[in-house]
């Protein structure tokens, strides 16, 4: 075998992504839930705000950014927890594989699922439910995919602190709910208590939601939009690196 163990390997990343997707394919119910639930929720929301389509526009756009983050967080935290507890992670790390290959594979696989999920939810919102987007729906999709990567990164990271699937799902309210309350979905962030506003300034979901609203209200990509996209992407990358540090070749 001539492969150098430390070389970066796109082939290993691709093989890992294909393997994760293959595992998902054996679980059609999860795939159906991943793809259909966001469409149903956004439809539900449309008729909750039946008399108030303006509110639907802003809340709907925010939710298109939040769905991929939450679902990918859950899926990744459970999937990597399983990888840790089943011994497959230990086995892989005893093989000539780089941590980046594994994490890249996960990000690629769940990123792909997120693209399909966001395409369905965005198409439904814009073309069927009449979500009024002034900017390009493609930019909505871009933010949604970055949000999904952020969710994947957070899920990967917290799975290191969960000893069981029970604990892993409990990280959802602990990590996601505070961001959900502070991201500006319920009330504009500048109308919160100053302390909460300051906290919301350092939470990545705030920028995910802000990015969605920038697309909603502007014809072209604004400077704020680029800032939002960079912050979400940067946070995802940072948390992915933290996640990589939790994959240990040697354990007690």
């Amino acid at each position, binding site marked *: *075998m001539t492969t150098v163990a430390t070389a970066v390997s796109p082939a290993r990343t691709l*093989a890992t992504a294909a393997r994760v997707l293959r595992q998902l394919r054996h*679980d059609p119910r999860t795939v159906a839930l991943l793809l259909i639930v966001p469409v149903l929720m956004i439809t539900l929301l449309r008729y909750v705000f039946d008399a108030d389509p303006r509110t639907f526009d802003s809340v709907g756009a925010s939710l298109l950014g939040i769905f991929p983050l939450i679902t990918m967080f859950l899926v990744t935290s459970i999937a990597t927890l399983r990888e840790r507890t089943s011994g497959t992670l230990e086995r892989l790390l005893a093989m000539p594989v780089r941590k980046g290959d594994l994490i890249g594979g996960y990000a690629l696989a769940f990123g792909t699922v997120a693209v399909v999920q966001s395409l369905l939810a965005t198409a439904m919102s814009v073309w069927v439910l009449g979500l009024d987007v002034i900017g390009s729906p493609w930019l909505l999709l871009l933010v949604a995919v970055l949000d999904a990567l952020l969710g994947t990164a957070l899920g990967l990271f917290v799975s290191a602190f969960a000893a069981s699937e029970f604990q892993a799902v409990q990280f959802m309210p602990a990590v996601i709910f505070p961001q959900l309350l502070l991201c500006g979905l319920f009330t504009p962030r500048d109308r919160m208590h100053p302390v909460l506003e300051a906290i919301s300034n350092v939470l990545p979901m705030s920028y995910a939601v802000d990015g969605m609203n920038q697309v909603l209200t502007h014809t072209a990509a604004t400077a704020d939009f680029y800032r939002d996209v960079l912050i979400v992407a940067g946070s995802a990358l940072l948390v992915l690196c933290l996640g990589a540090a939790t994959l240990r070749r040697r354990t007690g």
Partner: protein
Amino acid sequence: MMNYSDAAEAGAVEARALTVVRGDRTVLRGLDFTVAPGRITGLLGPSGCGKSTLMRAVVGTQADVTGTVDVLGSPAGHPGLRPRVGYVTQAPSVYSDLTVRQNLDYFAAVLRPGRGHAASRREAVIRAVRDVDLASHADVLAGHLSGGQHSRVSLAVALLGTPELLVLDEPTVGLDPVLRRDLWNLFHALAAERGTTILVSSHVMDEAERCHRLLLMREGEILADDTPDALRTRTGSATVEGAFLHLVDEANTIREEPTR
């Protein structure tokens, strides 16, 4: 320091003063041992005596190891060893939501990535499936297999890269006698035909008779390092189990004497 020519003459595994402390418990107490290349070395002892920890130290997945463990001429856990050492944990570590073939395809792609190796990967997968006698179940989900079949998938993964050293943690637990015999025949074939060094643990003493050499362990210490025949002769016992009990009694007397 050991150079490569020395390593070839010396053991496939050379451990000196190997110690592992986990919390306030010393799991391995300054072990010295050698695993002979191309032979089957059995690691025997009761559950909880430190067999798994010793194997993890050899493979390089155990944290907090002191002393030295050299494997195939490099320190245990060296990145260069990863393609050369196969490791099968006690619990089958494969994806239960993939088929046997999909599991092997993935691990083969990790070991030998790239399109250029597609043909050799396919061959390696077919051979590994045949080695563990799972050809008729290749397209069944690993999670749907029986316990014995499931652990054989895990073994097949370790055989993929044609490793020079195979570390097997209780591979025959829960298998019926026929399968156990077949697996031991496979281990002997691997050692004889491919020159594979095998370090295999068991807490069933009758499997000891099938090994070339034995390391008998108890409470983190090695009681004996010898061939099954020599052990029986030295202790005047009819079986390895008898030899083990004799050595345990002997160790207990030695330990008690200074306190008298």
